[in-house]
């Protein structure tokens, strides 16, 4: 396990932050940490890299308790409000951070990273004169300087142009192919959907859903059926197995939380002697899932 937390809680005078988070992130996975503004995502990541002292609970990175120097040895971090020493040039900044990591002869690595984040040609400019997006790019380079086993990226594309966003996606995929772990804070759901293997959704500091992205999405499959010659009992039975059930003329429309229910329902229709003309399924998008879960959480 690259990252593990047990009932980890961080609150500010009993308010905000996050509560009783238990998470496991395996090696080589891209883990998406999602939630609305103020849900506790940044607080969580800051706690992981040792800036905030947890109120209670435990957490380990690569088996080392968080807050220790050892736990940060193989970690990369891109802060949400990235700011770098602006009196240095890009190259000097990378050398400085390489020195902080105690990397010997970082020259080659620095060149590689400048290439990766598309800042070649800007390395001798002062950071002061970098655009916001360029600063985020150099931040990503810094986060990758030490070939980290796990990278925490707190909204890594917040300042990037559309091309930059695609590039970051590629970088994340590349890290995954090198069996590195990525912990991605984001509310850009389409982005998360494209790169993440697993996600956790956090709201008001509590994790309200967690698991493999595919599994979570499968749980919310939308089904449309066209049938004739049905009995009221059949309709009644189907409505009990599903959610958001709608019935109009010959058309049924509903959601199931488990895909395995679809063949069961089809079988019921046939066995009841009705005629099945059409059956369409559509897994919901992460956005649907997100809105749905947050909406439900707000009610309860």
């Amino acid at each position, binding site marked *: 396990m690259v990252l593990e937390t047990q009932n980890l809680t961080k609150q*500010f005078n009993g308010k905000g932050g996050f509560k009783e988070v238990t998470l496991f992130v395996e090696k080589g996975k891209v883990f998406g940490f999602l939630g609305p503004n103020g849900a506790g995502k940044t607080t969580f990541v*800051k706690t992981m*890299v*040792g*800036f*905030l*002292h947890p109120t209670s609970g435990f957490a380990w990175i690569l088996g080392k308790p968080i807050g220790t*120097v*050892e736990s*940060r*040895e193989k*970690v990369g*971090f891109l*802060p949400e*409000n*990235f*700011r*770098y*020493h602006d*009196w240095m040039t890009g190259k000097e900044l990378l050398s*400085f*951070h390489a*020195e*902080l*990591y*105690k990397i010997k002869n970082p020259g080659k690595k620095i060149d590689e990273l400048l290439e990766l984040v598309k800042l070649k040609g800007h390395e001798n400019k002062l950071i002061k004169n970098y655009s916001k997006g360029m600063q985020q790019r150099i*931040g990503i380079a*810094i986060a990758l300087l030490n070939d980290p086993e796990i990278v925490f990226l707190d909204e890594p594309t917040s300042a990037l142009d559309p091309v930059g966003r695609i590039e970051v996606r590629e970088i994340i995929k590349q890290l995954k192919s090198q069996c590195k772990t990525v912990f991605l804070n984001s509310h850009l759901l389409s982005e998360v959907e494209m790169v993440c293997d697993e996600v956790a959704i956090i709201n008001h500091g509590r994790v309200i859903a967690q698991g493999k992205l595919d599994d979570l999405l499968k749980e919310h499959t939308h089904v449309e059926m066209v049938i004739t010659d049905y009995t009221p009992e059949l309709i009644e039975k189907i409505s009990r197995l599903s959610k958001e059930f709608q019935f109009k003329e010959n058309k049924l429309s509903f959601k199931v939380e488990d895909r395995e229910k679809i063949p069961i329902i089809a079988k019921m229709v046939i066995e009841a002697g009705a005629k099945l003309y059409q059956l369409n399924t559509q897994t919901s998008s992460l956005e649907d899932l997100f809105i749905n879960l947050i909406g439900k959480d707000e009610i309860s």
Partner: protein
Amino acid sequence: MITIIKYTFKEMLKKRAFLLASLLSLLYLSIYAFGLSRIFERPSDSIYDIIFQSEILSAGLFFANLIVAFLVVLTSVNAISGEIESGTIYSILSKPIKRYELVLGKFIGLSIMIVLYSSIMFLSVVGLNIWFGSKISFGWDNILKGLFFFDLGPIVFLALIIASSSIFSTINTGIIAIMAYGIALVGGVLEQIGTAIQQSQVSAFGLKSGESLINAGIITSLILPTDVIYRKMTAELLTQSSGISFMMTQGLFGGMSQPSIYMFIYIFFYVVFLLYYGVKRFSQRDL
């Protein structure tokens, strides 16, 4: 920690505050040199001239010391708090380094810079006096001891500022630094006056008010002992130089009441405690 020291030093050289202070000191030294050239134009032989010359030297060192203190404040108030306020701290402390390494690294880096700067100021002032033909006879050991204490004061002041900067904001650290320095300065003057009153022994009343002034001075020295160290510096430089100590060191810029050895033990623990406390509070902070 070496990296922090190195980059603290580099940053200083690139900062405007440093350039400003350098220009200011250059200006000061030129004016002082010009003043000396005028003063030493006329021949001087009498004992009173030597006393006058020692006053000139003391005054020169006094203002040099003030400029160094100014530089210490300018360059160091935001040493830690500035990193927090600008957010650059997140790029530093997410690395496998301990928080104390940042605080001590900054302290050492700034210390090196301040010692260099302060030494240049001291040696320039003393050097100018010798160059223009001061009649005070300086021994090398006097100069070295004086230099040591001249540099020690700013370092002690730096320890206070670094500790404060690790705990409070830049603005508050600035206020604390200037207030502490001001109090120490005023307290030092009070103590001098107190000693003068006591030595003159005009009346029982004088004796008593002299004593209370001395006590006030001692208390302010405990808050920030820069003035005590400064007086020790003057004493080391002048007192033993030509064997007429009681006359040489009189005056507002000189040191009549000399700090005791306990004061110096206190100063040692003062620096250690401030750094320890600053590091401790900084390590416990949520950033």
